[in-house]
């Protein structure tokens, strides 16, 4: 410790601190590898098995027959898309009460989620899980998707889908790692705080355009540090910590004596 204390006035100390600051800021924005999920049709799903899973895992809050309780809403008519979204992103079953149910490693396999979706579908009609073709970014138009995203989504999810804060601890999550199916289901069903965008507001083709735009954001970076794509907050922190740090380092070096 005393060796560390002695060397704090070493002439390389400011440079070392600067390098450390750079490392911390850079490391903080390292992105995670994207994961993908595949949605199969409900044809092979077993509603009976889904009901058993529902009774064992969901009925405590959503009530027997999924009619809802004081703790949780009714699931009659929410449709398979909502079930698939909530269960495969790990948002349901909820781990703890909080401002919002957060995504976590899913507790059920894709097949189990589809079984539960099939069970919920038997209770009442609702939005269904999109087909592969409906969510294929290659078939969508990214420029049109950008126009639609800017008006309908960017206010919460940020200009390129990096996410952002809402009120009282709620937030719009990042879309950078969400699969096309999950993005489509979120638009269709409006999970939690998010309003829905039904097929009249955003047609299935327009939803696919938005997916195409979002997938485009994961492609080649046109350059520069994205700093999490969060806008002025992270850019301001960067300027204050790294920019001003570098200027202070220069001033110290210019004013120091040569040996």
């Amino acid at each position, binding site marked *: 410790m005393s060796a560390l204390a002695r060397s704090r006035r070493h002439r390389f100390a400011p440079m070392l601190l600067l390098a450390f600051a750079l490392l911390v800021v850079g490391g903080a924005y390292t992105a995670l590898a994207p994961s993908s999920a595949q949605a199969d049709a409900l044809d092979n799903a077993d509603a009976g098995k889904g009901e058993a899973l529902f009774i064992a895992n969901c009925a405590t809050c959503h009530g027997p027959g999924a009619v809802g309780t004081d703790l949780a809403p009714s699931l009659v008519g929410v449709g398979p898309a909502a079930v698939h979204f909530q269960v495969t992103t790990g948002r349901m079953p909820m781990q703890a009460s909080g401002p919002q149910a957060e995504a976590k490693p899913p507790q059920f396999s894709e097949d189990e989620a589809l079984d539960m979706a099939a069970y919920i579908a038997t209770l009442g009609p609702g939005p269904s899980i999109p087909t592969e073709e409906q969510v294929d970014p290659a078939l969508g138009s990214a420029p049109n998707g950008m*126009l*639609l995203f800017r*008006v*309908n989504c960017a*206010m*919460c999810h940020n200009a390129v889908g990096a996410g*952002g804060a*809402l*009120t009282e601890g*709620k937030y*719009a999550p990042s879309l950078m790692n969400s699969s096309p199916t999950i993005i489509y289901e979120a638009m269709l069903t*409006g999970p*939690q*705080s*998010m*309003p*829905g*965008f*039904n097929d*009249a*507001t955003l047609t299935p083709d*327009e939803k696919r355009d938005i997916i195409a735009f979002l997938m485009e954001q994961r*492609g*080649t*970076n*046109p*350059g*520069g540090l994205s700093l999490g794509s969060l806008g002025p907050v992270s850019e301001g922190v960067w300027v204050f910590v790294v920019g001003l740090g570098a200027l202070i380092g220069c001033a110290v*070096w*210019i004013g*120091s*004596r*040569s*040996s």
Partner: protein
Amino acid sequence: MSIEKSSHSGEHRELGGSAGLPERFENPGLEPHRHRLADSDPKRAKRSERQIALIFTISILASIAGVVGYAVFPVDIDRASVLNVRWSTLVVGLGLGIGMLGIGVAAVQWARALMDDGEKIEDRHPMSAGPAAHQQSLEILRQGADEANIARRPVLKGAIAGALALAPLPFLVPLIGNLGADWDISKFKRTAWAPREDGSGDPERFFEGTYRYLARDPQDTKIRAADVTNGNIVHVIPHGLPEEEHYLEEKAKAVVLLVRVDPSILKEAPERADWSYDGIVAYSKICTHVGCPVALYEQQTHHVLCPCHQSTFDITDAAKVVFGPAKRALPQLPIKVDPEGYLYAAADFDEPVGPSYWQRER
């Protein structure tokens, strides 16, 4: 640099102890000059010289690399790709940056390591030019005033005052003129939703040629009431606006949020009872604080949040402010449904949208 020694020698605290402190602390002056290794050791000086030359060389190489990078990664319209743009920006930027920084770093290092670093003292010169010069300038001014004899030449006095007053006008008039063609603040009170009372509107865009249809932003398609479902949101512009003049100015005033809530939780003032349709309400999207688009709708709480300063409005309660710096509720757009089920604006907003301004009455 010399210090006067006569100042306040009387007020010194008596301090005990035989060691005693001096009567006053003298200016110790400069510490003895410490020579650098390079001053006495030619090898060391040579090393510094090589170091500086190396930094200049890096600068030269970076400048060349920047130009080469511009040629290697074409960004013209035919051959540009995202990857080319990225590399071109990076290489040209680094070349320019390192090229310039290298010159600066080398120059500073040159001054630090090789130039004479002996301390030099230059005393300040008095600022005053002395009483003689002072007198002389005053005399010149007085003489000028006497010769001009302004008191006895009133015509010239008026002429010079007029010329001085008018000279800034060629600068000021265009400056103020360019602020805007007209000063008509009634524009703030009217938006593109205002009905065309004479029935002159395109029947495709105006119900009965008078009342403007609501349309989706940016698709500009009409909205059926049945298509607005609970928990959904529609971002709305006046139908046909994108093809009209001053589209962006008009859009900035006319954008609207359209949501449907359960009519049982909707609190409506009696005079606004017919402004909504079966739980569908339309509110201005322009924040009443400083005019950001309020569009972060939380469908579970029915609150809309402004991203700029966190003003929050309750959609179920006439869009009143529930949090944040905004002072007024969002203005409501009265909506009705035509026989085919499409929504139209029955009237303009009943108050100006957006932030307060001086001439606004409340």
